[in-house]
C-alpha cells in the first residue's frame, strides 16, 4: 500500500490514482462494514434473532474510510516518500543528544509533578473531589507504570517476550490476600514476602521455558498465565473461585495509624479531620509512587552492573554472549525472576487497594496491555515506558470523562465500550508507525570519554 510516487510530474499530486485508491478501499470497507456494522443482530421480544438495518451508518463509515485512504494516497504517502531519503540518512548525533536532553528534562519535571500531584488536586477539587483524580488516575496509572517498569526488565532489557506477566501480579495479590486474612500479617511484612513468592514462581516457570526461541516463549508464557487463572477459578477451596477473596485488610500507615473507619487509631480521627476515604487514597498514591520509584531505581542500578549489561547483550545476540562465557540461561532466569518480583510487589499493593481480588482481574488482556506499554515505550527506556503508561491508561480513563460526546452520538452512547477498541487500534497504529516505540535511542551504561546516545536503528533484536 506504500505505493511509491509514480506521478508524471514530481511537483504535482496524482489525484487520479489517489481517487482510485480511495474508491476501491471505500468499496472494500463497505463490503466488510456493511454486514458487521450495517446489519446488527438483535434479540426481539420473542428471543429470536433479527437484523437491525443500519446500512446507512455502515455507508457513512465506509465513506470516511475511503476519504481517509484518498488523503493518505494523495498527501501523506508522497510526503513520507519525499522525506524518506532524508530520514534514513543517519539521525545525526546532535539530534540524538538533543532528544536525550529533552528526555532528561522531562524526567525531572515529571518527577516533581508526580510528588506534588495530590496536593495540586486537593487544592483544585477539595478533599472529596480529589478521590477520583488521585485514585482512578493517579494510582491506576502508577500501578501500570510500575508493572511496565517491571516487565521492562524482561522484555525491554533482556529481550524475552513474556505474555504471561499477569501471573506474577496474581501471585502477589493472592499471597497478600490469603496471608493477611489467615495470618493477620501486616502489609509491610507481606510486601517482601509477595515479591519473594513471585520471584520464586518466576524461576519455576522460567526454568523449563527460557531456552525456547522468541515466539514460542511468548506462547508458553501466555499459556502459563491462562493456566494459573483457570486454576484460580476452579480451585475454590484455595482461591475462593470466581467469587474471589474479599475484605482484604487495608494498608496501615506503618502500623501506627489505620485507615479503617471503625479503628480506634484511625488516621482522620487522630488528626481531627473529617472522615473521608480520600486520605487512604492519597496515602496509597504515595505508596505506589515510592514502589514504582524503587523499581526504577533498582533497574537503573542493575543496568550499570554486569547483569544489566549482559541482559542488553543477550537481547542483541545470544550466541555471541555464550561464546563469551556467559551462562545465558542464568541471565534469562535472573531477568525473569526480578521482573516477577516487581510484579509481585505491585500485586500485593493492588490487593490492599481494592480490598478484593478475583481471577477476573488477571486475564490475558492485562498482560497484553502491559506488554503494549513496554513495547510502545521503546528500547528499555524508563521514561518511555512511563509515558506510554500515562498515554494508554490515562487516555482510556479519560474516555470515561467524555460525556459531551453523548450530545453528538446520542444518549445510548457509552464511550467506555470503545476503550479497548481504541487501545487495540493504538497498538496497531503505533507499531506500524514507530516499531521501536516512542523513545528510539539507547543510553550506554559506561563510557571512556563521553556518554553518547545510540540510535535505535542500530540495536538488534537477536533470537529469543
Amino acid at each position, binding site marked *: 500500500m506504500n505505493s511509491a510516487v509514480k506521478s508524471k510530474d514530481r511537483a504535482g499530486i496524482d489525484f487520479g490514482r489517489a481517487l482510485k485508491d480511495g474508491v476501491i478501499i471505500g468499496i472494500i470497507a463497505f463490503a466488510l462494514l456493511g454486514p458487521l456494522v450495517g446489519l446488527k443482530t438483535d434479540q426481539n421480544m420473542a428471543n429470536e434473532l433479527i437484523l437491525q438495518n443500519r446500512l446507512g451508518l455502515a455507508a457513512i463509515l465506509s465513506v470516511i474510510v475511503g476519504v481517509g485512504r484518498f488523503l493518505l494516497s494523495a498527501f501523506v504517502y508522497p510526503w513520507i516518500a519525499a522525506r524518506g531519503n532524508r530520514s534514513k540518512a543517519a539521525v545525526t548525533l546532535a539530534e540524538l543528544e538533543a532528544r536525550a536532553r529533552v528526555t532528561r528534562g522531562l524526567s525531572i519535571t515529571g518527577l516533581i509533578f508526580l510528588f506534588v500531584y495530590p496536593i495540586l488536586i486537593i487544592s483544585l477539587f477539595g478533599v472529596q473531589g480529589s478521590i477520583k483524580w488521585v485514585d482512578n488516575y493517579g494510582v491506576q496509572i502508577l500501578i501500570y507504570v510500575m508493572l511496565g517498569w517491571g516487565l521492562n526488565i524482561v522484555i525491554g532489557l533482556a529481550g524475552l517476550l513474556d505474555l504471561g506477566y499477569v501471573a506474577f501480579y496474581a501471585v502477589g495479590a493472592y499471597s497478600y490476600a490469603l496471608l493477611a486474612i489467615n495470618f493477620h500479617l501486616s502489609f509491610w511484612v507481606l510486601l517482601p514476602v509477595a515479591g519473594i513468592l513471585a520471584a520464586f514462581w518466576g524461576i519455576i516457570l522460567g526454568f523449563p521455558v527460557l531456552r525456547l526461541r522468541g515466539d514460542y516463549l511468548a506462547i508458553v508464557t501466555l499459556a502459563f498465565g491462562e493456566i494459573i487463572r483457570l486454576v484460580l477459578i476452579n480451585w475454590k477451596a484455595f482461591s475462593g473461585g470466581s467469587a474471589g477473596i474479599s475484605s482484604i485488610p487495608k494498608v496501615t500507615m506503618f502500623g501506627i495509624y489505620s485507615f479503617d473507619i471503625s479503628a480506634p487509631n484511625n488516621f482522620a480521627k487522630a488528626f481531627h479531620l473529617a472522615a473521608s476515604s480520600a486520605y487512604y487514597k492519597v496515602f496509597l498514591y504515595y505508596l505506589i509512587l515510592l514502589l514504582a520509584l524503587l523499581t526504577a531505581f*533498582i533497574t537503573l*542500578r*542493575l543496568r550499570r*552492573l*554486569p*547483569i544489566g*549489561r*549482559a541482559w*542488553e*547483550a543477550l537481547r*542483541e*545476540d545470544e*550466541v*555471541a*554472549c*555464550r*561464546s*563469551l*562465557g*556467559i*551462562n*545465558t540461561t542464568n541471565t534469562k532466569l*535472573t531477568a525473569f525472576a526480578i521482573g516477577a518480583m516487581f510484579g509481585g510487589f505491585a500485586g500485593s499493593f493492588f490487593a490492599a487497594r481494592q480490598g478484593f481480588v478475583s481471577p477476573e482481574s488477571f486475564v490475558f488482556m492485562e498482560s497484553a496491555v502491559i506488554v503494549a506499554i513496554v513495547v510502545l515505550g521503546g528500547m528499555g527506556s524508563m521514561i518511555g515506558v512511563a509515558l506510554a503508561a500515562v498515554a494508554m491508561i490515562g487516555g482510556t480513563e479519560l474516555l470515561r470523562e467524555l460525556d459531551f460526546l453523548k450530545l453528538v452520538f446520542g444518549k445510548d452512547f457509552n464511550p467506555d465500550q470503545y476503550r479497548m477498541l481504541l487501545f487495540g487500534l493504538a497498538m496497531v497504529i503505533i507499531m506500524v508507525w514507530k516499531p521501536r516505540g516512542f523513545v528510539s535511542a*539507547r543510553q*550506554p*551504561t*559506561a*563510557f*571512556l*570519554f*563521553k*556518554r*553518547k546516545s*545510540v*540510535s*535505535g536503528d*542500530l*540495536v*538488534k533484536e537477536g533470537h529469543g
Partner: protein
Amino acid sequence: MTTSHRNWDSDPVLTVEHLTMRFGGLVAVNDLSFSVGRGDITALIGPNGAGKTTVFNCITGFYKPTTGMMSMRPRDGSLHLLERLPDFIVARKAKVARTFQNIRLFSGMTLLENLLVAQHNPLMIASGMTILGVLGIGGYKTKEREAIDRARYWLDKIGLLSRADDPAGDLPYGAQRRLEIARAMCTGPDLLCLDEPAAGLNPRESAELNALLLSIRKDDGTSILLIEHDMSVVMGISDHVVVLEYGTKIADGTPTETRNDPRVIAAYLGVDDEEVEEIEHELDGTAGNEGGRA
C-alpha cells in the same frame, strides 16, 4: 614464523582426535585428528564446504560431535574434554574464545560496552553476583575500573580508542572484525579461534591483521587457530597448516610443506583423486615429489 620442530606434537594446547560430525545422512567432518601447538598460529584451510566452521563449532561447544575427543590444556595445567562441555563453559573454563564468520557484535552497544560484556564473569563475581553491587558495597567499582582499563588497552591495540563511545554498529567492516577479535581477547583466552578473520579485508588491512595476530601471540601468549582463505595471511604468519577437503584431512604440516603438497593443489583446483598423478606429471619440478604427499 619460526617452526619449532612440530611444536604441535610436543606441546599441544588442543588435541582433536577422531572427530566426526554427522547431520542426518551428511558427514560434515570425517574422522579428523590434529593438534594445535601451544603458542602457534595454526591455520585450518580448505575449499568451501570442507567442514571447517563445523570443526570450530564442535571445538567451541556449539555442536555436540557425533564421535571424537577434543582435549584442551590451558596454561594453568588443567585438562578439559571439550566434547562434553556446553558452549559457555568451553569459553569460561577451558579458555577458548572465538569469532564468527558473520560478525556477531553487539551493534547497539558501544565499543567499550562490547569489551565490558566480554569481562562479564570476573565482573559478576566482583559485584557479588549482583547483590552486593546493588547495595553499593564490595569493591565492584575498583574491578570495573580495571575492566575498563583492560578494554582501553585493547581498543588502543586495534587502533579504535578514539571511537570507544561510538556504537559498534557504526564501525566500518574492517574495524568491526578487529573489534570482534579484541572482544574475544578480553575474555583472557588461551586459545583464540578465528573464523575467516581476513574475509572482506583489502591487502593493507590483511597486513594489519597479520601484525595484530602476531602481537597477540607475542604479548599475550595466546595460541591462535584460524580458518582462512586469504593465503597471504595463512602463509605469512602460520606455523602450522591443516588442510580439509569434504570433511577429511588431506594435509598437515608446515606452510611450506602443505603449499607444495599435490593433493592440496588438486583440492583447490577441484581435481579428482585419480587425476592427481597426471597433474603431478604435468607440474614442473614439484611433480615427482612423492614425499610431498601428506
